[in-house]
């Protein structure tokens, strides 16, 4: 009734705009370096899996994926589990300095990674966590915990506190109430928080590269090192890039209905 | 202003070839006269909102058509049908003042400014919104916002009908009465066709001249509030209207007699043979059943509790497996739990398969 005129065209154009560079990357990943540098074709003349084979065979490549996943998972678990009790506190209670604390937490989300690059480098070296996934995981907590608290507080506030009171009257201890009653009710909120923590940790480069060198080198570092080398291995670089899209694409595909439903509820 | 005719209207949300028993609105035809105040009354899911939305054009019916003053309006949009609709929650334009909200429909039609201002002032006066005309609409209380929604509907002088979809749902109970009276005043002042959907019988009975009772997709009775109360055409109407609702008791009816639980009641009219397998019941309002001291000639029942409604008292009784309510006359007190019941024969209705049967004199 009040649809935007021309909306099909607008949406189609935008989707093409979004998919074009990705398609180009995928296209390149199936070409040999020779073909890439010598011709310009919209699809590989001689498609090859050689680039992908390199990544799956060369440890420095596939291990870096593993390293990345490692710190992302650690960070997600840490952020969400620390954020849960705090979100509950912000939702249910007034306490001394609560508004200031909440604001301070939010400002950390707004902190430029560049400011923390050197200090974190010193800090984590000093406590011996440099070049381990823990350094990156803890560093990312700086941004992800405020985000998780913000998201979870919203969801917990959607649960009436009568439920808490009933549980306590029924004799539940606080930890038991939290795990057995509250968590199932905010399951989708935990999912959303975990998703965003995963996402922000997965995409970040600066700290991930600064705090690692050899052992815990993430995929981002391996790829950017390829950039500065002479004699660029475009094919492998493209393949590596395509592989980094996979976790994101898989996750969205699985949660697409939750996202659609979440929007319908107007929860954002 | 329009007379609205519904011709063989029916709707199934699943499409036209859905099983007839699953129609949200079963085939119905009726006429709503111009200037009438109608209530569409029924419980949730009875089809009343569907009917309203078909009249306003929001829903296209699977079958049948709607006529305004004899003209087929099926092809017209809601706006083209010149309908005003008030929804369950206030619909106002946040960024505008109250006055701008009321003026909006008129501005969109390109009316001259002086005319718009005059009309807005008049409607604002009718709705007691004059003091707040220059305030931002989204700062007012919920009932004021609902009045603005209503005002936007009224501001168009040639509006065919105003449709209300449970408009008092979000209003504070204390203010409901005030708004309801306001609607009645408006109806008399403006001579508009008003159709009011509700599940609350008090709202329906106080607002409307004619009440349409719906049940499971069908219209079961149309009539004045008094007719619905005194001669319910369907057991559902008897049960739904009045508080407490009508007593419905299975009985054997033959000639001038009804037999319940071994006891015989005299009837005002005479009834003949029944079709095979028909379910026969009698209905009588608690107001017309009096509690008395137990006596051999009277039906006896156990008192379960007594409801004191202020102006009158009702007793809830049990007779065998049947439950009924009866009026407790002033000053009467019963020793023990058992009471006798006195039935007013003139007020006993007979129902076959839930539909009222007129007896012979």
């Amino acid at each position, binding site marked *: 009734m009040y649809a935007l005129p021309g909306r099909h065209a607008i949406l189609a154009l935008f989707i093409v705009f979004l998919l074009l560079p990705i398609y180009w990357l995928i296209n390149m990943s199936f070409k040999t370096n020779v073909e890439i540098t010598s011709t310009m074709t919209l699809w590989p003349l001689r498609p090859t899996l050689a680039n992908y084979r390199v990544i799956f065979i060369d440890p420095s490549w596939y291990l870096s994926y593993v390293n990345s996943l490692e710190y992302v998972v650690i960070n997600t678990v840490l952020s969400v589990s620390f954020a849960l009790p705090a979100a509950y506190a912000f939702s249910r209670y007034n306490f001394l300095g609560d508004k200031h604390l909440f604001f301070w937490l939010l400002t950390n989300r707004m902190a430029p990674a560049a*400011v*923390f690059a050197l200090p974190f480098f010193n800090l984590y070296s000093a406590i011996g966590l440099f070049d381990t996934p823990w350094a990156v995981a803890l560093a990312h907590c700086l941004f992800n915990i405020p985000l998780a608290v913000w998201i979870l507080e919203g969801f917990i506030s959607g649960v009436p506190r009568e439920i808490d009171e009933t549980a306590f009257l029924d004799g539940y201890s606080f930890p038991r109430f939290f795990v057995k009653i509250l968590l199932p009710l905010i399951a989708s909120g935990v999912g959303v928080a975990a998703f965003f923590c995963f996402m922000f940790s997965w995409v970040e480069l600066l700290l991930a590269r600064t705090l690692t060198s050899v052992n815990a080198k993430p995929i981002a570092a391996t790829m950017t090192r390829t950039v500065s080398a002479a004699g660029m291995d475009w094919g492998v670089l493209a393949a590596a890039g395509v592989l980094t899209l996979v976790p994101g694409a898989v996750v969205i595909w699985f949660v697409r209905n939750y996202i659609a439903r979440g929007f319908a509820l107007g929860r954002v | 202003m329009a007379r609205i005719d519904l011709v063989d209207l029916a709707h199934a949300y699943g499409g036209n070839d859905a099983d007839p028993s699953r129609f949200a609105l079963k085939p119905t035809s009726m006429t709503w006269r111009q200037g009438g105040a109608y209530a569409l009354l029924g419980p949730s899911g009875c089809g009343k909102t569907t009917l309203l939305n078909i009249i306003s054009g929001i829903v296209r019916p699977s079958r049948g058509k709607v006529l305004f003053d004899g003209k087929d309006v099926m092809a017209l949009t809601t706006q083209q049908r010149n309908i005003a609709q008030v929804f369950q929650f206030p619909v106002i334009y946040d960024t505008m003042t109250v006055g701008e909200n009321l003026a909006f429909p008129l501005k969109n039609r390109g009316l001259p400014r002086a005319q718009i201002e005059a009309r807005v002032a008049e409607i604002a006066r009718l709705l007691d919104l004059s003091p707040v005309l220059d305030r931002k609409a989204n700062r007012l209380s919920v009932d004021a916002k609902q009045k603005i929604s209503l005002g936007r509907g009224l501001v168009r002088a040639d509006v065919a009908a105003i449709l209300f979809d449970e408009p008092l749902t979000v209003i504070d109970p204390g203010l409901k009465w005030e708004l309801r009276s306001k609607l009645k005043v408006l109806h008399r002042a403006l001579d508009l066709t008003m159709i009011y959907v509700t599940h609350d019988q008090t709202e329906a009975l106080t607002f409307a001249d004619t009440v349409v009772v719906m049940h499971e997709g069908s219209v079961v009775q149309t009539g004045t509030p008094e007719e619905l109360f005194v001669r319910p055409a369907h057991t559902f109407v008897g049960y739904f209207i009045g508080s407490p609702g009508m007593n419905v008791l299975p009985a054997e009816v033959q000639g001038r007699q009804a037999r319940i639980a071994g006891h015989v009641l005299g009837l005002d009219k005479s009834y003949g043979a029944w079709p095979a397998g028909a379910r026969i019941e009698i209905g009588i309002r608690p107001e017309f059943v009096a509690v008395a001291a137990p006596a051999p000639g009277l039906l006896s029942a156990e008192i379960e509790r007594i409801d004191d409604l202020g102006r009158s008292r009702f007793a809830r009784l049990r007779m065998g497996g049947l439950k009924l309510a009866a009026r407790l006359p002033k000053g009467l007190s019963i020793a023990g739990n058992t009471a006798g019941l006195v039935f007013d024969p003139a007020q006993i209705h007979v129902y076959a398969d839930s539909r009222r049967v007129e007896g012979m004199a």
Partner: protein
Amino acid sequence: MEKITNQKAWLLVLPVFALVAFSAVIPLMTVVNYSVQDTFGNNKFFWNGIGWYQELLDPSTELGGRFFASLWRNLAFSAIVLAIEMPLGIVVALAMPREGWGVAFSLVVLALPLLIPWNVVGTIWQIFGRTDIGLLGYTLHWLGSDYNYVASPLDAWLTIIAMDVWHWSSLVALLCYAGLKSIPEAFYQAASIDGASRWAVFWAIQLPKMKRVLLIAGLLRFMDSFMIYTEPFVVTGGGPGNSTTFLSIELVKLALGQFDLGKAAAMSIVYMLIIIIVCWVYYTVMTNAGEDRGSARGGP
């Protein structure tokens, strides 16, 4: 919901507070420390007071010059991308389907750029814009342009802006879409009954209801664009020259490249202060806008 006052809630908040304080306060104290000291590189530090700050905030010095140049670049960049991404996001949100299979499909496609590691975003556009192996660069050359993001600052800027629009418009679109979906159908029906035009529906119904999400989207986009590092760094490395050297890039160059601790520290502090002030202003505006509607805090 009424909140009880209970100081024991601090126990629940303590782990978060400790972890974030550890991550934030200690490094920040280090930074503040460095910002007021100088060293000859032999690990001996001596007090420099506000010396670094004076140098930083004086455009005539080399440090100050670089700082202000980067700052203006950042402000220009944020202004441009916001001016493009906000309207674009709104339009795309209005264009998205409200029901049917198209909903999930559009959501997935729109979310895709948001989940790509930022260095890969940079790599994608680095390749895409090259005139020898990239579709965009090649096509532009084929059409007669002399586009070259390595040599021309203008082309470098255009490429980075296009990349940011590509990367982040979806976020604005998704947030606006969520805001739009919360509008009940009855509002559109009422507007239709009132004879409202399409434009009037946008101004009077849709835009006001999106005000909150637009504030969130605007804040997020300003912040993230003001702090941008990875994507432009991968594509241009800050060049050609220093035409795309944004504040973060400048800072990392100073801190990790030149190990100019004092200068980097002072720049860090000023950088953060700018962001915190803007954040505070936005937060206040948002909570006031929330109180207009009677809600207590400008939360989710």
